[in-house]
């Protein structure tokens, strides 16, 4: 025996140390939320504003839709997703008949629910009927089925529409549209009160826990997800409601969140404190504009409205509103659609829809009969003109400063415009109720190849008395010429040449009438932490928009640390 006792002890000690060290290395994995490995957990810091529902996973209820648990993003899957074009998801394709009175939807076969049950045509038919039967209960995705009948064959559902409708498929494309619910869970339940407590939908995750006190929901990936090609990388998903930005910056800087929204203004600081943090900034799909109340003189005069449009320094507002250096601020002369087949460039030029020209505005006012008397413009009754401009302050300079810039320019031509700050709920009520002179608004819903949403709201159907809620552009605009164009547009296939001509016609009329004017397009962004996960980049579809998390999840890859 060459080993002395001491040597033997040394060897034992070294072995023991080595094994401890290897154990330590094996356990080096950082744990979060009790026992979730950080590198396998994707943490979304959401910021649900008012609704705070953590125990209901009911897709029909508006209060739960905007929740922070992430269920609408993690487990609810759409029929198709839309980015620049459409991608099949729970459904494969759609097709219209010749006159647009029938649409056939091909559903995806082989899908299943996250409790393991298959997702079949039965579930589709059940959901359609369930929605139709409960249409009077004030639930989402029921109104489009009114007077619609359908029949199923194989994996196809054919919808018989009461009148030609080339836009019926919009009810199946994108976030927040019709999607089937499991029959075995929802049968016999009331859509307004059922909570779907086990969160059964078709997505790749299962509910682990959800806590209303700590505002945290934990999801775990399921191995039996129906589409193995789209199996997401993170084993766990944690959705939590982040604290106020003042506090949340520290969480971000410590790398405790992976994805979420933060005010643009704090991004620079966060990025310098934590080099893993990347802002993913895109242009917001809803450009901003101003609506005039067309029932109040002199705003009932389109020349006066256009003169106000000429007083708007849009470039200055856009520059203030946007994060410098990411996406160039855009104005929207073409109502958000880059395709010239849908808008009339000559009309934009002729009616100066984005021009800032106070002199032209003064000339237009003189011409329209609003002369300058003792330094103030007077209306047709000889009274000095005084208007209120309503805005809200959400911390974005663009939303507030326009009113002050407009007020200043208006004063130079002799019109008094008082900027008035409102709290958000009052703003959301006074707007639709038409209780304003000039109000700030965002214009959502314009789809590539179909900008009808930008004109639809101008139909005189929406010109309700002041004080009643209007679903359209709430300026109480009413013009038979515009109505006629909109009514034709509703029944035309947007891809047809007739429709395109109509769109250009509507654009020209809008530019001449200026019932609302354009302001700017805004940059919006989410913050992404690349320390544990990568794969999200500027330019990818959806990446800027947190409600589209289901689509984003598929881009994620573990970071090589």
């Amino acid at each position: 025996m060459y080993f002395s006792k001491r040597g033997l002890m040394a060897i034992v000690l070294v072995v023991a140390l080595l094994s401890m060290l290897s154990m330590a290395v094996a356990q080096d994995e950082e744990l979060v939320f009790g026992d979730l490995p950080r590198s396998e957990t994707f943490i979304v810091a959401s910021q649900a504003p008012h609704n705070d529902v953590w125990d209901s996973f009911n897709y029909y209820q508006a209060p739960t839709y905007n929740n922070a648990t992430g269920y609408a993003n993690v487990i609810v899957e759409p029929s198709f997703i839309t980015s620049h074009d459409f991608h099949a998801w729970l459904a494969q394709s759609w097709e219209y008949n010749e006159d647009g009175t029938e649409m056939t939807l091909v559903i995806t076969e082989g899908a299943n629910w996250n409790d393991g049950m298959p997702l079949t045509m039965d579930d589709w038919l059940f959901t359609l009927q369930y929605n139709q039967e409960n249409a009077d209960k004030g639930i989402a995705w029921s109104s489009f089925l009114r007077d619609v009948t359908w029949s199923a064959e194989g994996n196809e559902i054919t919808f018989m529409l009461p009148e030609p409708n080339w836009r019926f498929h919009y009810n199946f494309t994108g976030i927040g549209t019709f999607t089937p619910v499991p029959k075995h869970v929802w049968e016999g339940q009331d859509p307004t009160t059922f909570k779907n407590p086990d969160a059964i939908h078709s997505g790749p995750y299962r509910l682990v826990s959800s806590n209303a006190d700590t505002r945290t929901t934990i999801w775990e990936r399921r191995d039996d997800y129906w589409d193995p090609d789209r199996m997401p990388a993170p084993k766990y998903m944690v959705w939590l409601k982040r604290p106020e930005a003042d506090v949340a910056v520290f969480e971000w800087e410590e790398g405790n969140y992976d994805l979420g929204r933060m005010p643009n203004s704090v991004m620079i600081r966060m990025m310098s404190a934590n080099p893993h943090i990347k802002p993913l900034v895109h242009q917001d799909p809803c450009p901003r504009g101003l609506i005039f109340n067309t029932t109040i003189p002199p705003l009932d005069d389109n020349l006066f409205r256009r003169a106000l449009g000429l007083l708007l320094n849009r470039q200055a507002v856009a520059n203030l509103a946007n994060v410098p250096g990411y996406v160039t601020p855009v104005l929207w002369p073409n109502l958000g659609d880059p395709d010239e087949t849908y808008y009339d460039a000559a009309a934009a030029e002729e009616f100066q829809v984005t021009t800032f020209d106070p002199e032209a505005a003064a000339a237009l006012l003189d011409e329209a009969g609003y002369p300058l008397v003792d330094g103030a413009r007077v209306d047709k009754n000889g009274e000095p003109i005084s208007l209120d401009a309503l805005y809200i302050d959400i911390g974005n300079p663009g939303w507030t400063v326009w009113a002050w810039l407009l007020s200043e320019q208006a004063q130079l031509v002799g019109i008094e415009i008082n900027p008035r700050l409102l709290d958000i709920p009052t703003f959301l009520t006074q707007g639709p109720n038409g209780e304003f002179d000039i109000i700030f608004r965002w214009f959502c819903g314009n789809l590539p190849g179909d900008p009808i949403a930008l004109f639809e709201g101008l139909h005189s159907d929406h010109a309700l008395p002041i004080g009643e809620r209007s679903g359209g552009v709430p300026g109480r605009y009413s013009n038979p010429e515009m109505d006629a164009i909109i009514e034709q547009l509703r029944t035309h296939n947007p891809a047809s040449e007739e429709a395109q001509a109509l769109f250009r016609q509507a654009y020209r009329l809008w530019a001449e009438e200026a019932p609302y004017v354009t302001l700017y397009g805004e940059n919006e962004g989410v913050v992404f932490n690349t320390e544990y996960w990568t794969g999200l980049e500027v330019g990818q579809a959806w990446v800027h928009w947190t409600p589209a998390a289901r689509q984003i999840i598929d881009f994620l890859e573990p970071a090589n640390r």
Partner: protein
Amino acid sequence: MTANIDARADESATERQDAGRREVFQYAIRRFGVYLFTLWAAITVAFFIFRLVPGDPMNILLGNLTRAEGRQRDAAAEEAIIAHYREIFGMDDPLPLQYVNYLRKAVLGGLDLGPSFVEYPAQTKDLVFRRMPWTLGIFTTSVFLAWLIGTGLGALIGWMQRHGLSQLAVILSTLLQITPQYLVALGLIIYAGYTLRILPAGGPYARHLQPEWSWEFISSLIQHAILPMLSNMIVIGAGFTLGMRALMISVLGEDYLTFARAKGLSPFTVLKDYAFRNALIPQVTGLAIIIGATLNGTFIIEILFQYPGLGTLFVQAMGLRDFNTMQAIVLFSIFAVLTLTLIVDLALPLLDPRIRRVA
């Protein structure tokens, strides 16, 4: 010495003890009647205010719904949705009838305060009761502690008002009293929570835990409560200190103190039995007010610390114009303040014999 004085006081008290008792009893009855009337009047006014605030919950709800509903807007469908919710929330009835129904359900229906918009279909009552323990537990406790510390400290500072330390304490508490609570809370979060990392600075307990009787949960609960309590205590405590000091000083000018001191009573006895007692009465009233105001005043702390209490709920409800929930919270706060004031008023004659005569 003290015993001597007490004995004399007892003698004079015995003379009108019986009459006094009857008077106090009558006073209590009348005071209770006033309490009930005030409660009713305040609730009534609050009811009408909340229904008249601009901002229609239907508009806000529908804003959410239509955002969810996709792209095709449908005026008729929106009407149907509005009609459905208006019916559930009883908004179609004329206001006086709504009021009668509200009172009837609240009183006879076992506190049925209607459904909530914030967490529809949750009942307002359940919502409020779920959030109440957090507010009561953290904020009421901290107000109470702040009151105790502030009163003691204020009395001491007032008593020794010429002492250098006292003047320093006055300046310090003046600074703290007027500092916006938001800054104090944020300062604690940044310093204790993220710089020193000694205490968690957000949420009621660690995010992965569920309420249970385990050491892990309870210790987490306590750790998470320290910073919000502290930020509440600092500001409110400073206010109590200054208030007590001012009261103390005004009492110190009284002749009977000079007399008592001249008699050779020890300064501490004079402080304890004379000055402190007399200054205490308004301070007790102040406590009742502040406890009620806690609900309105500390919501910023609840929000910064992500505490799931009534303050946070009120802000959420205000944002959705959820009048049922706002009303329920205000109802609770009205009830708390008035009841506390009642208790204080009934207890005051015990503290201050002179008030007995007022009654």
